[in-house]
């Protein structure tokens, strides 16, 4: 045994360039950075799987919600502002990528104060993005009643005229958002005193509720109080008001039809894909905070590797921005 060991040692001394001797960096990158790249590659495949599923299901459906109609609200009660809000989100993420680059650059010159400041700005960007996403989600869920199984956004495949005269007629590919009727609130019933159902209905008709500012909500809609079949619409068990229309194009011209909920997969795909991305942003923010604190405490100075940890979280953060480029492309632009 001893002999063998000696032999190995000799071998080692004579071959300093041997790849198995350790201390060498394949691809001239540190272990941590290389593994971050491979993690990001695998993550890219996960996102690609999600986005390809979206594309395949979208192609498989005869109609699909039109993105610039779905994502057309802006904080402050603005409607019909296609792509405005999501463009804002894109810019927030893009500029947080820039502040991250600056943090990494200050890392290269070992300028601690600069790193902390730029990382702090990056964290603010990440939080602002998450805030925007929270607002977008709460609008979709709370006001527009989209869930992972119910999608109130639809697109017609034929032209027609609504029976409700307030709504008029529409072309092929017309985009609609189904609204819910307002059941008299239980809370109001409890209060009771002098605040009857009729008053309440009038409140709604007068447009006190923000939801009634949503496009396509009519005066007749405000009168529905329970599910059932009405002259202008059907109110289904979930409370969605499905307007009736007379088809004026295609094979079914002349028939009267009722609006249907949009493609079911849309809600699940939207919430899972943007949610998975948002989760990446969230974890990114958590790691950014940890690393920023470590930078500030001087931990990385001892490592003398040009703040490589900042570089690694930088790679991750840029990747999150990179994924958003494609989420933005498939969900909002096309």
């Amino acid at each position: 045994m001893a002999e063998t060991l000696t032999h190995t040692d000799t071998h080692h001394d004579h071959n300093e360039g041997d790849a198995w001797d350790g201390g060498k960096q394949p691809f001239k990158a540190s272990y941590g950075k290389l593994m971050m790249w491979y993690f990001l590659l695998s993550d890219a495949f996960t996102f690609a799987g999600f986005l390809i599923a979206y594309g395949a299901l979208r192609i498989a459906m005869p109609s699909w919600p039109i993105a610039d109609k779905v994502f057309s609200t802006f904080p402050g009660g603005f409607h019909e502002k296609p792509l405005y809000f999501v463009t804002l989100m894109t810019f927030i993420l893009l500029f947080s990528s820039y502040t991250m680059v600056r943090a990494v650059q200050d890392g290269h010159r070992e300028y601690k104060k600069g790193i902390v400041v730029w990382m702090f700005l990056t964290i603010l960007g990440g939080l602002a993005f998450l805030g925007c996403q929270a607002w977008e989600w709460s609008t979709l869920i709370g006001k527009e009643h989209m869930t992972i199984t119910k999608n109130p956004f639809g697109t017609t495949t034929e032209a027609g005229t609504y029976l409700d005269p307030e709504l008029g007629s529409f072309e092929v590919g017309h985009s609609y958002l189904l609204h819910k009727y307002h059941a008299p609130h239980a809370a109001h019933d409890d209060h009771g005193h002098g605040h009857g159902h009729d008053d309440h209905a009038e409140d709604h008709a007068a447009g006190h509720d923000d939801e009634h500012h949503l496009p396509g909500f009519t005066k007749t809609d405000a009168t529905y109080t329970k599910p059932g079949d009405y002259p202008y619409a059907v109110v289904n068990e979930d409370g969605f008001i499905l307007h009736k229309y007379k088809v004026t194009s295609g094979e079914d011209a002349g028939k009267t039809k009722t609006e249907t909920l949009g493609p079911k997969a849309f809600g699940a795909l939207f919430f899972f894909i943007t949610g998975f991305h948002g989760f990446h942003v969230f974890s990114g923010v958590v790691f950014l905070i940890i690393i920023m604190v470590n930078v500030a405490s001087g931990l990385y100075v001892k490592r003398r590797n040009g703040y490589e940890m900042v570089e690694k979280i930088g790679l991750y953060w840029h990747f999150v921005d990179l994924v958003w480029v494609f989420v933005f492309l498939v969900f909002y632009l096309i």
Partner: protein
Amino acid sequence: MGHMTHEESVKSATKWIIVLAVITICEVLFALLGKGYLIEGVEVATWIMALVMIIMSLVKAYLIVYEFMHMKYEVPGLVKSVLLPTLLLVWAVIAFFWEGADWNKRRTLIDDKNKETVETVRTTGQTGELIKELEQ
């Protein structure tokens, strides 16, 4: 990045963030134009829109990976081992979209078949007698 001074690398990052912002603005304007929001009556065919958007997004992806993630400065082996596997996605996209288009075709076919009506044909002979018997 030993070959760039701090000032040079800051300048480079600032340049590319502006380029990325400009491309994003172009994307949004083109999306709005293509769907007829900017100029009344002007719309662009969906496939041209999709093509232009995909190209612009790929340019953005290239800039983020090469400039911000410093792929530009990595050795060729690393670049290849990270980027070449993503080419597999090209086939994934083609295969799944092909499949999706086929689902659509089948769905349409079933819808069309459901709309078809069959008129009862009165035949003579044994079959005709059988139909009459069944109807009674």
